[in-house]
């Protein structure tokens, strides 16, 4: 990000960067940056809080009016109030995990769990008017089937021209995760940690993606191993056995 600022500024365009990782910004020395104390992925702070976001963006833009520089790195003082857990949040009900941890059982659970969450996902969409599902360009049921077939070890062909099977697997896993994170919130506002705990520890999708990661890492297909190692389970959620 800071490098982009450098290139654009050299071409005559004034820039100000939001910084989420202060040491990185200190190393790269952009013309102007506002460091924010928010979690990665939230450069302008809490969702659905226009007043807070406005304070962030104005604090950044006002650095453009400073007469002296470079380099300017300033800190934004306010914490993201949505980083705190929502005590009243309850995830949508789903069946408890089965003791049968076989690939077939995991795949079948994933396929049957997805439609159970449709009502919760509808509540999400009604409240927020958007969804981040879409990288695979498959419907969510087809996404679930595609991922489930990989869990079963079938290595299904890509259903989309121009996209390899491993790439489609990555995008389908992304879409399944997006669906669960949206359905998990429904019409409520849990923290990202609450949603992540639920997805990775309590759902069939979490269990299936963990198992899929383990299976693909054992593959001889280097591309599949790359996808599995980097693009399925967040580093903070990887279990020692997976």
């Amino acid at each position, binding site marked *: *990000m*800071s490098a*982009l*600022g*450098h290139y*654009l*500024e050299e*071409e005559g365009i*004034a*820039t*100000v960067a*939001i*910084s*989420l*990782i202060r*040491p*990185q910004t200190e*190393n790269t*020395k*952009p*013309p102007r940056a506002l460091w924010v104390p928010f*979690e*990665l*992925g939230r*450069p302008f702070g809490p*969702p*659905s809080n*226009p007043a807070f*976001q*406005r304070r962030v*963006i*104005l604090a950044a*833009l*006002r650095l453009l*009016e400073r007469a002296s*520089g*470079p*380099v300017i790195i300033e800190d934004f003082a306010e914490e993201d109030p*949505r*980083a705190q857990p929502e005590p009243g949040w309850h995830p949508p009900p789903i069946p408890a995990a089965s003791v049968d941890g076989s690939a077939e059982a995991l795949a079948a659970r994933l396929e049957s769990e997805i439609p159970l969450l449709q009502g919760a996902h509808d509540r999400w969409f009604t409240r*927020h*008017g*958007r*969804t*981040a599902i*879409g990288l695979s360009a498959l419907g969510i049921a087809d996404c679930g089937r595609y991922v489930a077939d990989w869990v079963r070890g079938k290595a299904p062909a890509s259903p989309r021209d121009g996209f390899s099977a491993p790439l489609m697997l990555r*995008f389908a896993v992304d879409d399944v995760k*997006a669906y669960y*994170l*949206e359905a998990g*919130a429904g019409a409520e506002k849990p923290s*990202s940690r609450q949603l*992540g705990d639920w997805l990775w520890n309590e759902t069939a999708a979490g269990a299936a993606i963990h198992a899929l990661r383990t299976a693909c890492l054992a593959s001889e297909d280097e591309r599949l191993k790359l996808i599995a190692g*980097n*693009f*399925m*389970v*967040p*580093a*903070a959620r990887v279990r020692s056995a997976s």
Partner: protein
Amino acid sequence: MTRLTDLPPAQAQRLAELECPDFATRPWVSGAALSRRRVAIVSSAGLVVRGEDPFRGRDPDYRVIPAETKREDLLISHISINFDRTGFQEDWNVVFPLDRLNELAAEGAIGSVAQTHYSFMGATDPVQMEPHARELAGRLKQDAVTAVILSPV
């Protein structure tokens, strides 16, 4: 919750110490008051308009996001899965603050909002991005942009 300190130590250190070109210059462009600036967003979140080709890896080029893009049509295709996406899922302004910019323009706090915004894929080597960034500067000038807010994830 994915602060740097929540990541495994090795990965947190890698991010904090990410290599960057050692620039020989320290450019600095001054300009008019904020109320006369035309502002564009340049994101490194791997943003893509629904239906267009997502970033597939460390692609060095950028995607175009017209100002009339609807909030339900902006997706993240960044290759990293180690940052929070739930904020963006709920409200695109968390990453792409177009609504906030439009409000600031309407009340005169900034001059205007660019007709087009852009996204790179931030995990790409900056050296590979350089020619695309310099070409992008030309596009921004054609749109009379005088300030860019750089939005990472």
